[in-house]
């Protein structure tokens, strides 16, 4: 009885949505509004209006800034949920059981628990890590000029963190990312959107509104840079946390 009620309710809600979908212009229709109005404007005036030389970023962070805000919030909520599961269950036990212990080389070798890192690898990774960091920062900051941006740069930054954890040992790296700090960093992307959104209110009266005046081009650019940094740092923090939460120690 209850199930039937739920089902019929769902059908009733679905009908208007289906009608709306049927009313949408067919995919690839050259007369669709998206092709006749918006694209042309994005392409012709995007650079001028949005303040980003990279059109994709302009559309993503300026014209559809609100959409992207929703997107990052959804992504980061989902990841936070995944993290919550990982953290409360005491970590996922990956590979621990089906992995045979390393075959002993000598008698005393088997007593010594983990194999130390090769000094060569340790050295080279430590040497490369700052360069990887600079590179990640470059990708994040230049997102509005060249392809790349917060998500990509964040992934590189996360990779740097992960390789340092692998090589230096989790014990040395974990204290650098204490729980409260990690929590705030994870939220960096939505938080930066909120901050910039509020700034938009101050400038234009609209949430996430970008000041349209030509003279404020630099301000627009700066706002986007802050958003990119937020996305990048947040992404990196999420990657790092997931890696640290995976596989119990």
């Amino acid at each position, binding site marked *: 009885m209850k199930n039937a009620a739920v089902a019929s309710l769902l059908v009733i809600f679905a009908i208007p949505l289906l009608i709306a979908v049927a009313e949408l212009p067919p995919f690839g229709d050259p007369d669709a509004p998206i092709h006749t109005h918006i694209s042309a404007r994005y392409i012709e005036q995007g650079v001028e209006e949005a303040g980003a030389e990279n059109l994709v970023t302009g559309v993503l962070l300026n014209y559809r800034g609100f959409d992207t805000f929703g997107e990052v919030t959804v992504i980061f909520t989902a990841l936070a949920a995944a993290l919550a599961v990982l953290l409360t269950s005491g970590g996922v036990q990956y590979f621990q059981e089906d992995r045979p212990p*390393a*075959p002993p*080389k000598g008698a005393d070798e088997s007593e010594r628990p983990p*194999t130390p890192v*090769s000094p*060569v*690898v340790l050295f*080279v990774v430590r*040497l*490369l890590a700052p360069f990887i960091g600079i590179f990640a920062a470059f990708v994040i900051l230049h997102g509005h000029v060249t392809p790349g941006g917060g998500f990509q740069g964040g992934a590189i930054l996360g990779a740097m963190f992960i390789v340092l954890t692998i090589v230096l040992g989790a014990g040395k790296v974990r204290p650098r990312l204490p729980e409260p700090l990690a929590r705030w960093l994870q939220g960096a992307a939505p938080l930066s959107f909120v901050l910039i959104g509020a700034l938009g209110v101050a400038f234009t009266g609209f949430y996430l509104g970008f000041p349209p005046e030509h003279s404020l081009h630099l301000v627009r650019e700066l706002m986007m840079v802050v958003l990119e940094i937020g996305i990048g740092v947040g992404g990196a923090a999420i990657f790092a946390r997931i890696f640290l939460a995976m596989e119990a120690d």
Partner: protein
Amino acid sequence: MISYEGIINAIVVVLVGFGAFFFLVGTIGLVRLPDFYSRTHAATKCDTLGAGSILLALAVFNGLEPSSVKMIALAALVLLSSPTSGHALARAAHRTGLDYWRLDKE
């Protein structure tokens, strides 16, 4: 009459040919050699040199530009990371007890 461009192109072709030859040798070595350790020999040495000389050729062809410096940086990265990866792999193999191929084993 030998032009400046002709000289550059000749250098590029020679360097690329050099690099391509070593890439080919590395590939054949990877397929042909009998065990992991000797394959690592072929892979690290030939690939480092091949990648280095091709990237150098690209930088020469490109001339004096920021992107040429980037290509040299790429070559330096390969020069640093390739032997290190080779060593890391050999060490992992050694520590997990992989024995090396010997002549008298046959």
